[in-house]
């Protein structure tokens, strides 16, 4: 085990949301002081692991620890983000770090939320290529220009940071699709190989699915992959309006 020399250590005051469904108690914030190296900028996930060394009952999801799997989405000092790629220097203020689960979703335990609502909305947009062309077992060619249209859309890792930062999704998680699902809806609508464009737009043409977005851009400000769901949603809105005219 690596040991850190005493003079290189500083103490970080962590406050972590705790909830255990078996305890019958209400959620509470647990204060934990952790020793972090002074000369290195560690990630929030690393700090959580240090806290877990003191209290092994702290629960959170994590897997790849490099911002690819999207499992450690959490609310860090009030802003959603991935613990594994958020350095402490970016979020810690006055030596304090408050970590809560993603807002608006039912908490299963501590920082683990039930993503069912989020995934249900994702399913609704049929996140796969639909083509009425005969399947001859070969790939469907696409021009370089058409492929370029998917940049900024396909990179989404479905961490849920954006949708759970969106007030429209908080108030109508069953009717408003949320920024993550809508970004993916636009990804397939703008794919030249997809032939179900009109049906996809039909599905979105109601007062809630898309039009509950009021462009406040919370989604853009929290996306750990730097994507812009607001822009994609605006494009869908424009398509729907053009069709109606």
């Amino acid at each position, binding site marked *: 085990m690596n040991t850190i020399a005493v003079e290189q250590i500083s103490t970080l005051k962590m406050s972590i949301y705790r909830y255990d469904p078996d305890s019958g108690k209400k*959620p509470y914030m647990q204060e934990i002081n952790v020793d972090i190296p002074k000369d290195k900028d560690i990630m929030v996930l690393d700090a959580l692991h240090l806290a877990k060394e003191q209290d092994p009952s702290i629960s959170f999801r994590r897997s790849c620890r490099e911002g690819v799997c999207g499992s450690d989405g959490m609310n860090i000092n009030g802003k959603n983000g991935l613990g594994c790629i958020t350095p402490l220097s970016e979020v810690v203020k006055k030596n304090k770090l408050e970590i*809560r*689960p993603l807002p608006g979703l039912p908490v299963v335990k501590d920082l683990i939320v*039930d993503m069912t609502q989020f995934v249900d909305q994702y399913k609704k947009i049929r996140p796969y290529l639909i083509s009425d062309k005969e399947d001859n077992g070969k790939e469907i060619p696409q021009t370089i220009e058409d492929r370029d249209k998917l940049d900024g859309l396909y990179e989404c890792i479905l961490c849920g940071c954006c949708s759970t930062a969106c007030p429209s999704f908080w108030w109508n998680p069953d009717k408003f699709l949320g920024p993550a699902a809508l970004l993916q809806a636009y990804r397939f609508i703008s794919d030249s190989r997809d032939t179900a464009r009109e049906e996809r737009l039909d599905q979105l043409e109601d007062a809630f699915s898309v039009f509950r977005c009021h*462009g406040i*851009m*919370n989604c*853009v*400000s929290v996306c750990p992959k730097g994507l812009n769901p607001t822009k994609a949603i*605006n494009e869908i809105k424009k398509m729907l309006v053009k069709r109606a005219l």
Partner: protein
Amino acid sequence: MSRPPIFLNLLKIQLPVAGLSSILHRISAVGIFLLFLPFTFILVLALNSEDGFNKATFFLDLFLVKTFLSLLLIGLIYHFMSGIRHLIMDFGYWSTLRSGKYSAIGTIFLSILFSLILIIQIW
């Protein structure tokens, strides 16, 4: 089994300025809705007769009425400016994080400026 808790303490969640601008847009709409009717009555009163006009000017000189009129104008100006911003966004502009932020700040700043000019006129 009891329902699982949901973390949604709005005081603990950061709200970017574009979000603040959106909430103010709604609050201003509620304010306009509540204040518009009484001031419409004053306008109708003023247009009905000379006596009515004199009564309306008397009402508009009252401190409380002036205060509510100022609030109505602040709400109207903000709601109008923010609505224009939304229209511009609907046409596909200002949809990056940077432009969204600065357009929201600009809306709030211009609304404060125009409100001050009008309030000075009223008082």
